[in-house]
């Protein structure tokens, strides 16, 4: 490798955490971990493995975070037992960050909100959507329980440096288009293994216009294209989000201009309109106006992808003064207690309840067919979540469609999947609020 070889942001962060000056794709590194995360599904296996290794103490009690967010508040006895394993381990290890019900939210919304992941850091989590924190300019990726156990014990993990895939978004963002539509469009374009093993680097003027919520949504779904991580260089918007939350110093990395990319693609966002992923794969994406009339039984607004405050605000804007279609169930799930509280203060719950929605406590719940809105045979749901695999939300003969909160809210009123313009007639000002600064 040349001495001054340029590097991408992902390469720089990995190099810095492996004590190397420079690294290139394909290289195996033993990487220092800033944060390791587990949840009520993955941590019990990891804790078992941790004990089997013969490890006594976690590498750092502030840097191992346990979030029981999937089947909680415990949906049955088995789930309660899983949570108990986490609780007892957290107590025995004196972990600083174990989130008990009341403080617990969906991990990938909760950790950034609490300032637990910062720009330039390396975070791993036994959950595939750990890639969400790339929106902060961190390297973060999902691993399995055994890797989490090894990371908890040693504070290190081996990684192969990924190739980078540059995705450039330019042009003016259309009404009702958010980060969700951009990432769905992208996955529709490159496929569910379009970025397999790679780092997806999102950049361009349109990305800089996106709110943090929209950026988190995009990085969150990098895994849906098979990527190892998704990443966005920090800018003013990032720093505004990070500064009041950070409790330790952090570092901003940027890609060198001449850095090497295995692939690059450009998207003119002025040609992207609200998108929907049809069953049973996230890459089966269409423009919402091109799918015909698909009637739905349930709408879910929530998850680590779209349970942010911005997401609830845009849903409220559309639902205000309206009612959901008869016989349609609308379930709204604020991602964290802080979002829940703020939505309450802003009067969003009044709007949701009047529209006929039910508001769930923060939980993954129906996103993975857990509880709080599981589907019966033959039912169709439109969800702001990230996966629509067969059986993901319940019965193997049910169907899941994916969209932004704006499309979801409008569709809840209509009863079939529709463009928000069908509810918010033409001339509506401020329709570009979602996901845009």
């Amino acid at each position, binding site marked *: 490798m040349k001495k001054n070889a340029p590097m991408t942001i992902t390469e720089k962060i990995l190099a810095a955490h492996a004590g190397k000056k420079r690294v290139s794709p394909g290289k195996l590194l033993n990487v220092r971990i800033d944060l390791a995360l587990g949840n009520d599904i993955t941590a019990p296996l990891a804790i078992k493995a941790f004990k089997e290794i013969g490890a006594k103490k976690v590498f750092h009690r502030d840097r191992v975070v346990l979030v029981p967010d999937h089947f909680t508040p415990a949906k049955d006895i*088995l*789930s309660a037992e899983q949570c108990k394993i986490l609780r007892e381990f957290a107590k025995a290890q004196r972990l600083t960050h174990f989130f008990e019900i009341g403080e617990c939210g969906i991990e990938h919304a909760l950790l950034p909100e609490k300032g637990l992941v910062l720009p330039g850091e390396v975070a791993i989590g036994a959950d595939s959507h750990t890639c969400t924190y790339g929106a902060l300019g961190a390297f973060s990726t999902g691993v399995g329980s055994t890797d989490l156990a090894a990371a908890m014990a040693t504070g290190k993990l081996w990684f192969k440096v990924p190739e980078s895939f540059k995705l450039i978004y330019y042009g003016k963002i259309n009404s009702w288009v958010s980060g969700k539509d951009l990432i769905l469009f992208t996955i529709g374009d490159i496929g*569910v293994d379009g970025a397999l093993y790679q780092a997806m680097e999102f950049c361009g003027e349109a990305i800089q216009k996106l709110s943090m919520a929209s950026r988190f949504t995009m990085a969150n779904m990098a895994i849906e294209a098979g990527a190892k991580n998704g990443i966005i260089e920090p800018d003013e918007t990032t720093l505004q989000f990070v500064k009041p939350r950070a409790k330790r110093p952090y570092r901003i990395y940027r890609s060198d201009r001449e850095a090497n990319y295995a692939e690059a693609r450009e998207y003119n966002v002025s040609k992207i309109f609200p998108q929907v992923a049809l069953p049973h794969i996230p890459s089966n994406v269409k423009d919402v106006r091109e799918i015909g009339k698909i009637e739905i039984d349930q709408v879910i607004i929530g998850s680590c992808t779209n349970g942010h405050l911005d997401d609830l605000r845009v849903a409220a804007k559309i639902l205000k003064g309206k009612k959901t279609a008869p016989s349609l169930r609308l379930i709204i799930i604020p991602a964290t207690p802080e979002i829940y509280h703020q939505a309450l203060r802003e009067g969003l719950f009044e709007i949701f309840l009047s529209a006929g929605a039910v508001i769930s406590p923060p939980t993954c719940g129906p996103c993975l067919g857990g509880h709080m809105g599981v589907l019966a045979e033959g039912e169709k749901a439109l969800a702001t979540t990230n996966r629509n695999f067969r059986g*993901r939300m319940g019965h193997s003969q049910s169907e899941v469609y994916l969209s932004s909160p704006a499309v979801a809210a409008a569709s809840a009123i209509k009863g079939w999947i529709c463009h928000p313009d069908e509810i918010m007639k033409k001339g509506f000002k401020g329709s570009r609020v979602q996901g845009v600064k």
Partner: protein
Amino acid sequence: MKIEGRIWKFGSDVDTDAIIPARYLNQSDAKELAKHAMEDERPEFSQKVKKGDILLAEKNFGCGSSREHAPLALKAVGISCIIAKSFARIFYRNGLNLGLPLLESSEASEAIHEGDRVRVNLTTGEIFDLTQKKKFFAKPIPAFMQDLIKDGGLIRHLRKKRLKGNR
């Protein structure tokens, strides 16, 4: 290291919800998970798999969630090895960490049929279809990962190293 078994063939993008539906993840007992392996895709799978059978798939096997319950369920139901055109990243890592051998070969994925008997040599990457008398080669598993598999996964490997006092 040699493995021999009968082939179960699957398509592209088999996701972790297909391998083990999330509704069973409120516990993590391998035997319990094994009962539901591939349930939505092929309800008869868990009853009919014989110990040592080999799973064959097309591209991007194991995409979706990071649940280690997926390779764990396949291992527990008796699958000895998975051959695919490609694997989703986290599944690949998890499989090897659990000591479940994973091989990538497009040719084998296309040519081998459901029900064929196949012998796999993990050291050389040779895949021999005994039914069709055809030979294929996958990229051999890197040496340090073969050590993992021999020891029965990352945890046993780490423990062994620890006992030897050179962790």
